[in-house]
């Protein structure tokens, strides 16, 4: 399966489809709970990560939440 991930070509061997969760795992994404995913231009709900699958030719973007706070500073 040939994908475009964050603007770069990516080949997932021996798979014709894969869930978003599976893809993040395949890509060794650390802290996937803090990742937002866009599939072919649409931002996905986190609750759909196990249900939605990627297929050959799909374009995926993912990025980490960016936030912070004063906390104990």
């Amino acid at each position, binding site marked *: 399966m040939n994908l475009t991930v*964050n*603007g770069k070509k990516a080949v997932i061997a021996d798979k014709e489809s894969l869930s978003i969760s599976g893809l993040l795992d395949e890509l060794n994404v*650390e*802290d996937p709970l*803090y990742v*937002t995913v*866009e599939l072919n231009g649409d*931002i996905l709900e986190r609750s759909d990560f196990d249900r939605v699958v990627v297929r050959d030719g799909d374009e995926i*973007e993912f*990025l*980490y*939440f*960016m*936030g*912070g*706070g*004063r*906390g*104990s*500073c």
Partner: protein
Amino acid sequence: MSMLQMAKSIYERIIGRAREGFPFEVCGILGGKGNIVSAIYPMTNTDASRDHFMMDPREQFSVVKALRSQELEMLAVYHSHPETPARLSDEDIRLALTPDISYVIVSLAEPSAPEVRSFRIADKKVGSEELRIIYD
């Protein structure tokens, strides 16, 4: 010690944004090549808070694509501390998830003398880095 370089105009825009947004925290993304910042993208603080910030993922995706189209990299995330020092808080460190970028803080704790500092984080350990201003 690593180093982040930026033009004085960008440095001043970071401070200006922090002042405009006061008393809320402001945030944004800095792009460039190598360790030289050449682009600033102010972002919405969806928390609209005095002591927290969170970027809008839609804006993040938009900026990431804009950077890519200009063959620039995301070099840093900046945010303001309206009333506290230019140090990363525990929460800043916990949520510093994007690897291989700098984390820049502008403090307005001394309103007449804003302080801007840059940090790198690896394995949740914080290291200060030199922030060099390039004068036009």
